């Protein structure tokens, strides 16, 4: 019996799984690209809802939770595989009737791949290589609750989107014109332009690293 178990164990393959759900309560804003759309098996056959497999700008894969309002808004705005989306959880709305749950409300924007990629000047190579796939991507990781972000580090969502976008744009420019970008220069530039988001947050979100006093692409 033990030998049979060992034999079977040696032939065992890990099952697939889906990317973890994006937790809008912890991270109210999601920015990234749609890599796949799967019919939510719990939704009506006649009126299906979709599970949106997405990828952040840094290449991390997630699935957006199956919220009716979010799914509708994405589809109304023409979201599809390859397009870039912005989803901002703005809170719970009022219930339509006595029963049911309060709907989760979102701000949603959809952008074509061409427009988004033209805007993302010199994206990290790793990100560029990843193409949208027709089939849902099976992750190695088992299905589990999203891991809470490391609390010690400052989180991007603590800062305004405008501030974050401004800082990202500044860093992209700096990396474009300074082949060897000094950390002090990067900090000074952000500070000088009134960006309150710390450099470390940008490094985390933009796939950069600080090494030997220089800011580089990771």
């Amino acid at each position, binding site marked *: 019996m033990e030998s049979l178990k060992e034999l079977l164990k040696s032939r065992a393959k890990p099952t697939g799984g889906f990317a973890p759900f994006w937790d809008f309560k912890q991270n109210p804003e999601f920015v990234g690209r749609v890599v796949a759309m799967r019919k939510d098996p719990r939704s009506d056959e006649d009126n299906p809802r979709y599970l949106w497999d997405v990828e952040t700008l840094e290449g991390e894969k997630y699935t957006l939770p199956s919220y009716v309002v979010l799914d509708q808004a994405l589809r109304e705005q023409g979201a599809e595989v390859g397009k870039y989306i912005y989803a901002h959880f703005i809170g719970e709305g009022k219930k339509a009737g006595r029963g049911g749950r309060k709907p989760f409300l979102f701000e949603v924007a959809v952008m074509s791949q061409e427009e988004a990629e033209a805007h993302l000047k010199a994206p990290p190579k790793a990100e560029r290589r990843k193409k949208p796939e027709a089939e849902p991507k099976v992750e190695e990781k088992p299905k589990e609750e999203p891991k809470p972000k490391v609390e010690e580090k400052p989180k991007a969502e603590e800062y305004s989107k405008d501030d974050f976008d401004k800082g990202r*744009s500044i860093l992209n*420019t700096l990396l*474009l*014109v*300074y082949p060897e970008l000094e950390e002090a*220069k990067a900090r000074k*530039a952000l500070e*000088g*332009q009134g960006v309150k988001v710390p450099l470390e947050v940008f490094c985390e979100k933009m796939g950069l690293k600080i090494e030997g006093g220089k800011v580089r692409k990771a």
Partner: protein
Amino acid sequence: MRPEEIVEKFYSALLGDSPYSQPKGSVSVTQLSFPCLRRAVIEILSGISGIDPGGLIRTWIGKKCHETSILKKKMELELQWEGVYGRVDEYDPDSFVLIDKKFTRSVPSEVREHHARQVNYYRVLLEKNGMPVSEMYVVYVDVDAAFVRVLPVEMMPLEEAEAELVERRDRVLECVKTGILPPREVRFWEEGARRTVCDYCSVFSVCFASDITLVLPKPYTEE
């Protein structure tokens, strides 16, 4: 009228008679031709192009000299393409010859690198506006020693010149958008030269007072 009043009127007249009519939001070929793009960004962001009285007079002499046509064809041809503005000194639509005139006090034996770049960029503007170019020259006129030297300019492959022009334009516009100054490119004019390009730069003081973002002189206040 006192002599001082005449001097004052002279400088006012020179400054009022600006030779530039660069459209707002555009980058000029001249700005893109200098190795140092920092100057272009400072000029666009600050709206100033500082010049000393000597430089002003030299510019005036150059401008007056430009009025004499060599080819007797198209002169001071103002062109635009994809946010780049340029003014071509002379172009002959029959022989497809492009001429750029430089009035200097030091005539080089070979076309200066940034002049060659400038002329190649002018060619891009001409070609994009339906005017082909087959020969390009820089006419150097030494206004002190009074002699002329005509030097042919090597043509870059058009696609290469276009790509370079667009790349440099994008760098400048990106910096203008974010308020970031590109690095200074301090270098000597040529090997063995005593002075650097910065010695002649019109935005020298603003450039060196600034680091990564622009620092303009503060307006005077009583406090």
